[in-house]
């Protein structure tokens, strides 16, 4: 369908008076209810993004406390700080929370805040769905930790292998808590993925064609597509198969009745391996943003960077069997999966080389954000190297399920997720709060974290070689693992100290940091073209993009498109490839129905731990929430469709 030329060049920018009148009207249009009710009913992506980020960091802290207790327990042999039953809950909840409640959703959280700003629009595609996703996620996280603190924490590992997690060997409700937490977080992740895909493909500022999208936005686009194809696998396996085996005695994994424990492993890792890339690809996007700004030049090799992200996204689905080398897998399969696991290092390597070239040809400024971006390269590369090694079947069979693997993936995740994430905090904090974080504390934070990570996790490589398996609550003194474990425990204290420095920095800077202004870093992205923090409507008038680094290229005059309504929450929809203006879409206002829907979903899945009838009740409750959500409010009589009205050719275009 060709787009008729409905956009006429407007030679004149709005006059100051008109601009102020429009801003006043936008303030009324985007007014919140205020107070707690305003917070509950808010559909503003920035409000939701902020609480999403804060919630993720809260789970990070709680899961980190689990880790600290585990490190204390392992600091010496035959320690009795916690017993095996408690320890197994601690490590399961640590892993599950870090994966399902922190590493993936914190990327969603940042994207929720940043993506509309970075593509130059006023909102995400479906604001109420966004709010629903957040509440669902919140319920899931609360459920997991309430479970842990009431001695009902899952205790069969974050991978919940059957038959250990099945009805026979895991009676009680612990594994059910795990299965439903997975359900909640996967619903939230899938909702956010659709949200991001449509926001990025259909709501970009005019002129932001695909070859001008910021690399971070590309990374979120790739990851969102990966979520769409990865998450259904674990959601199905946990909600529809494991939970049903436990609740209504189906036999999906029961070997005696023709079920298959390996089916669980296939479904879990078909999700679980892409999950690793889902976590760190947004990290690569953060690093690109930070390096671009702090070298003052566009990232070298943009097409290579984009292709690398896309290739990684595809190949990530061809690696899952390398978690299953110790199970009966045909030889040919093993070879293919080894080859894919080795070669996936190439695109990431290419990106690292492009960043190095960017630094070489730029003017690097070593801010805290930049240090974290560089720390990412230094730490993550080690994890990448060991990752290539364990693609080898014979080598993997030696180190699989040992502390070598623990070391490997902490280098990958802390290097690939947490370093870029901290960098992103320093980088975008001024946009979110309007104030800069302390650089001095930031550098303390960086160096403590850098040292802590290496002291904690490097010795674990060696422990793995010397035979220490994962997921053991203690070990015998004669195994000789005490000294390196003690060292790792000391390292964990350094990490804890660095996180405390970070929290202090956030709190102090939020209240009394230096006022940042719209663009404190002289950055090129559209998110810096509005005030810090941005108004509820982000942009007015909406920006127009003429190159890959809009603010560097536009000089002191920002090209804009005028004419978007100010008396309703209107957003501009553009074409998917070239981002040409196509139509205007009205967004809904504040609503409490997303929370109602999340509660209905919460009742359903928490109730389903106890009785299958919860699905019936939950379905009815959800239908009610659905009706409340969708029922027309009739706020604009002029939009109403009267009987016999014919299509307005101008409006339907």
């Amino acid at each position, binding site marked *: 369908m060709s787009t008729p030329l409905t956009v006429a060049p407007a030679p004149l920018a709005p006059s100051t008076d008109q601009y102020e009148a429009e801003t006043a009207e936008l303030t009324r249009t985007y007014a919140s209810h205020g107070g707690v009710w305003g917070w509950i009913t808010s559909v503003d992506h920035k409000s939701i993004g902020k609480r999403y980020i804060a919630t993720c960091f809260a789970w990070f802290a709680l899961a980190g406390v689990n880790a600290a207790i585990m490190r204390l327990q392992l600091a010496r042999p035959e320690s009795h700080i916690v017993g095996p039953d408690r320890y197994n809950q601690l490590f399961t909840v640590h892993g599950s929370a870090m994966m399902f409640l922190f590493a993936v959703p914190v990327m969603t959280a940042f994207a929720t805040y940043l993506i509309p700003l970075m593509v130059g629009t006023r909102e995400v595609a479906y604001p109420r769905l966004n709010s629903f996703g957040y509440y669902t996620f919140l319920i899931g996280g609360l459920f997991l930790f309430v479970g842990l603190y009431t001695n009902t924490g899952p205790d069969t590992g974050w991978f919940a292998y059957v038959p250990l997690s099945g009805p026979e060997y895991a009676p009680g409700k612990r594994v059910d808590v795990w299965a439903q937490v997975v359900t909640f977080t996967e619903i939230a992740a899938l909702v956010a993925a659709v949200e991001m895909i449509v926001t990025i493909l259909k709501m970009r500022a005019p002129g932001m064609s695909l070859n001008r999208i910021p690399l971070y936005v590309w990374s979120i686009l790739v990851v969102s597509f990966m979520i769409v194809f990865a998450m259904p*696998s674990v959601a199905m396996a946990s909600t529809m198969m494991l939970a049903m085996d436990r609740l209504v005695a189906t036999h999906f994994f029961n070997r005696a009745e023709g079920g298959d424990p390996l089916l669980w492993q296939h479904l879990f890792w078909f999700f679980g391996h892409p999950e690793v890339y889902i976590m760190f690809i947004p990290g690569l996007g953060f690093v690109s943003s930070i390096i671009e700004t702090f070298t003052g030049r566009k990232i070298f090799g943009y097409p290579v960077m984009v292709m690398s992200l896309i290739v990684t996204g595809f190949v990530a689905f061809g690696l899952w069997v390398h978690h299953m080398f110790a199970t009966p897998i045909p030889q040919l399969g093993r070879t293919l999966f080894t080859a894919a696991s080795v070669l996936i290092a190439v695109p990431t390597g290419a990106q690292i080389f492009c960043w190095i070239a960017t630094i070489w040809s730029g003017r690097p400024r070593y801010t805290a954000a930049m240090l974290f971006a560089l720390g990412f390269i230094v730490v993550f590369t080690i994890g990448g190297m060991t990752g290539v090694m364990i693609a080898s079947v014979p080598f993997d069979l030696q180190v699989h399920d040992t502390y070598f693997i623990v070391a490997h993936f902490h280098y990958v995740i802390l290097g690939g997720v947490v370093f870029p994430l901290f960098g992103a905090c320093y980088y975008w904090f001024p946009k979110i709060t309007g104030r800069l974080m302390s650089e001095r504390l930031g550098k303390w934070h960086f160096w403590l974290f850098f040292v802590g990570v290496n002291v904690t996790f490097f010795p674990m490589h060696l422990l793995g070689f010397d035979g220490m398996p994962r997921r053991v609550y203690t070990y015998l003194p004669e195994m000789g693992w005490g000294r390196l474990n003690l060292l790792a425990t000391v390292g964990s204290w350094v990490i804890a100290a660095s996180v405390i420095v970070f929290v202090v920095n956030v709190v102090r800077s939020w209240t009394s940091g230096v006022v940042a202004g719209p663009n404190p870093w002289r950055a090129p992205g559209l998110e810096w073209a509005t005030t810090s923090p941005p108004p509820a409507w982000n942009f007015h008038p909406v920006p127009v993009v003429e190159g890959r680094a809009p603010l560097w290229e536009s000089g002191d005059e920002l090209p804009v498109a*005028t004419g978007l309504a100010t008396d309703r929450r209107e957003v501009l929809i553009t074409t998917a490839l070239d981002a040409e203006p196509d139509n205007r879409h009205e967004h809904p206002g504040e609503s409490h129905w997303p929370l109602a829907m999340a509660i209905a979903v919460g009742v359903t899945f928490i109730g389903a731990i106890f009785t299958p009838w919860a699905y019936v009740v939950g379905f009815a409750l959800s239908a009610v929430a659905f009706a409340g959500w969708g029922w027309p409010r009739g706020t604009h009589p002029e939009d109403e469709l009267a009987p016999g009205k014919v299509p307005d050719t101008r409006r339907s275009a």
Partner: protein
Amino acid sequence: MTQRLRGVMDLRGLPDVVFGSRDIMWWGTLGFVLIEGFTLALCAAAYLYLTQNFPTWPPQNTPLPSVVAPTVQVVVMLVSLVPAAWTSRAARRYDLGAVRIGLTIATAFGIAIVGLRAWELLVSLNVKWDANAYGSVQWLVLGAHATLLAVELVEIAGMMLIFWIAPVEEKHLSDVTDMVFYWYFMVLSWLPLYVLCFWLPRWL
């Protein structure tokens, strides 16, 4: 804003009601079609995986499923595509009366199809979910698709009510066409699953 603004285009003339892939609600529908379609494909993959564990499918002493009700259902589903397409065209014409009638017919079809699905589960399958892994996975595939059908029925019925009694806005016409698009997905995704659940046991 500190930067000066240079107006380069005016958006006032753009339409605010559009249909099909120009509308972002269509894209959202597509997103959920992808997710749910892939989930159903994974259910089918799990089904095929589990067939390997049995020398015969269905296992010994488990009766074959009946194909009568499922075949009737498939026919009803295919027939329902005609009024669905008609409703979609009526919506694009802004023909409120026709859309009302179309949605009412669609709701009737929806109720019939969900009813037939309940019959399939309880009668045609001839196996309970806890009999063996065969029974479990039969219920998984039918149940997963049935859940989507039930949710869609609520949506269709809700939309019908909106069109009869609520202040209908022009944008709801676009929503009707997206719903029809989703209905096509519901019907087309069922065809391979129908063959899988009701005919494959006869061939294996």
